[in-house]
């Protein structure tokens, strides 16, 4: 235990004097969040505009209040020239053109050129139509409620960027730091020296592990702190604290992946390259940087076997979708199980010495 504390302290002091380390573990992923946050701000919730061609009862019968409410997500403009409206949809000026083709029959023209916008406008129009249906069947109208739903269903960029990028940051620091520490210690003969001291292998491995977990917690705090700034507007819901055990088990899982890579690597550079080769493709395939909803089917299938994907998805659930322990537990269990298996393998491959 004593060995664990003195090694952890030595490692923390040593790391904190390393500017590159500070940059890559905290600032670099945060830069991505700041950057993507700005780039995508309002991206997926981009206002949709629909051109109304001729009379459309669902739209025409709206009250002013309802129209204003709708206006927050969907702008409706009148353009009675169908050919002109279609041209505008085709060249992307507007997202859709809505026509009433008979009583109770609506036709929505949209462009397949931009799938995101097409899907968004379809969804929005559908909601409007369903709403009117409900009114027609005599159920109590609930405009406000429905528009609120519209907003919640359309995931804001910050809501997937935060868990996605945080997951990526945790994966990167997890895969890199623990493995790199052990490889560096081995190459600099510190492991050999420690082998001559009365310390157990567990203390030697636990120290970099604890430091990496601490880093993951700092990353989480910084990310949530920034994302919940009014400018980025992430609103934490109910059981958001579950992100902490998720991040910790994710970090352990990625450390064990790094440990495995580090068992084979002879130099820090080799370990670093191996870790990067693992983490970067995984981040893309897991949808850390952008949602996979419109990615090809095989990418979505591959994502299912990526621990990073599950980590980000579960974090998104607990951070901003109001889900609770049920959503987090299976992922935590899976991450820890994978970590345990990989750890056992890496410990078998562990070497104190190069030769």
């Amino acid at each position: 235990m004593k060995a664990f504390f003195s090694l952890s302290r030595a490692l923390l002091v040593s790391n904190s004097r390393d500017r590159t380390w500070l940059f890559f573990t905290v600032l670099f992923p945060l830069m991505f969040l700041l950057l993507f946050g700005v780039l995508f701000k309002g991206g997926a919730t981009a206002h949709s505009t629909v051109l109304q061609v001729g009379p459309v009862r669902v739209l025409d019968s709206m009250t002013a209040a309802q129209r204003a409410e709708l206006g927050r997500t969907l702008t409706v403009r009148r353009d009675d020239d169908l050919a002109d409206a279609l041209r505008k949809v085709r060249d992307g000026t507007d997202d859709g053109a809505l026509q009433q083709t008979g009583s109770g029959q609506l036709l929505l023209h949209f462009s397949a050129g931009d799938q995101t916008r097409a899907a968004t406008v379809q969804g929005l129009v559908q909601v409007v139509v369903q709403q009117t249906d409900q009114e027609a069947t005599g159920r109590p109208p609930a405009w406000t409620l429905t528009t609120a739903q519209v907003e919640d269903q359309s995931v804001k960029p910050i809501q997937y960027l935060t868990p996605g990028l945080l997951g990526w940051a945790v994966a990167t620091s997890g895969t890199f730091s623990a493995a790199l520490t052990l490889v560096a210690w081995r190459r600099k003969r510190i492991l050999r020296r420690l082998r001559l001291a009365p310390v157990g292998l567990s203390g030697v491995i636990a120290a970099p592990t604890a430091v990496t977990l601490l880093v993951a917690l700092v990353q989480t705090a910084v990310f949530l702190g920034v994302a919940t700034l009014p400018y980025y507007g992430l609103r934490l819901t109910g059981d958001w604290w579950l992100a902490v055990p998720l991040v910790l088990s994710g970090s352990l899982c990625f450390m064990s992946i790094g440990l495995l890579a580090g068992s084979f690597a002879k130099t820090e550079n080799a370990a670093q390259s191996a870790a990067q080769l693992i983490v970067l493709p995984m981040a893309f395939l897991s949808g850390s940087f952008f949602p996979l909803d419109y990615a090809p089917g095989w990418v979505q299938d591959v994502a299912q076997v990526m621990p990073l994907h599950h980590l980000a998805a579960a974090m998104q659930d607990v951070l901003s979708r109001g889900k609770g322990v049920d959503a987090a537990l299976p992922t935590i269990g899976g991450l820890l199980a994978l970590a345990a298996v990989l750890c056992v393998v890496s410990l078998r491959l562990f070497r104190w010495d190069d030769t």
Partner: protein
Amino acid sequence: MTGDDDAAITADGLRKRYGAVQAVDGVSLSVRRGEFFGLLGPNGAGKTTTLEILEGLREPDEGTATLLGERPWPRNPRLLPRIGVQLQASAFFERLTAREQLATFASLYGVGLRRAEEMLARVGLAEFAGTQAERLSGGQAQRLSIACALVHEPELVFLDEPTTGLDPQARRNLWDLLREINADGRTVVLTTHYLDEAEILCDRVAVMDHGRLLRTGAPAALIRELDAPTRISVPSGALSVDEARTVLGEGAQTTDDGVSLVFATRSPASVLALLGERGALNGLEVRGGTLEDVFLHLTGREYRE
């Protein structure tokens, strides 16, 4: 095999092979408690490998080692706090200061910080306590490394070529420190490829070459037993070589390299008498045998450092 109480180390028939290289080839030795023992040999002789086997860092292919009555292999937690090791290449934590390095090692051994401070002063690094290990000079780094090996007051200390790469002044300073460590009552095992160092510091040396111990004993005894000729030299030209050879005959081997006239002889009295007669004693130097001669005699070749 059980070591008697007096033995700090007993090794019996150690062998270690790396691929085609037989690094250690049947080494047996014993070191008494409190002794300053030197393992002397040129680079590649197998000194480090022998030391690593004794320290418990490597498993020998054959043979057994016993340290302080304990087996070093497999890793023996009872033995580890009783031995101190300075590795051939320094092993420091990156970006930690001298004080922090020492404090870390101290707490690994459960030793207080006060002791770490004392140790720092003892090796003369008090004023460099706040300097990061990477920025220490070669001699300072060796001192820190020795301090780390000693911080837990081990009974038995291994030092692998502690003075290699140091300038003469730093070497001499380190010798003083090593003598003090031994004077504290600790057993010291030192490897070196400097013959003079072994001769000056060690109670006993083992001369090693090609993985084998050629001879073990006190430096003076090894030299005496060699019965090497005494070398007497005077400045070149004090006497002609021919004249010297005529007078001394088989009694001395005479050579003149243009700088010195050198006599190698087993009857120095007759040479000195001759030089005295001719008034050629200015700049006289007399040198007995050295470990270098011992090495030459044992291996049949010049010692190469």
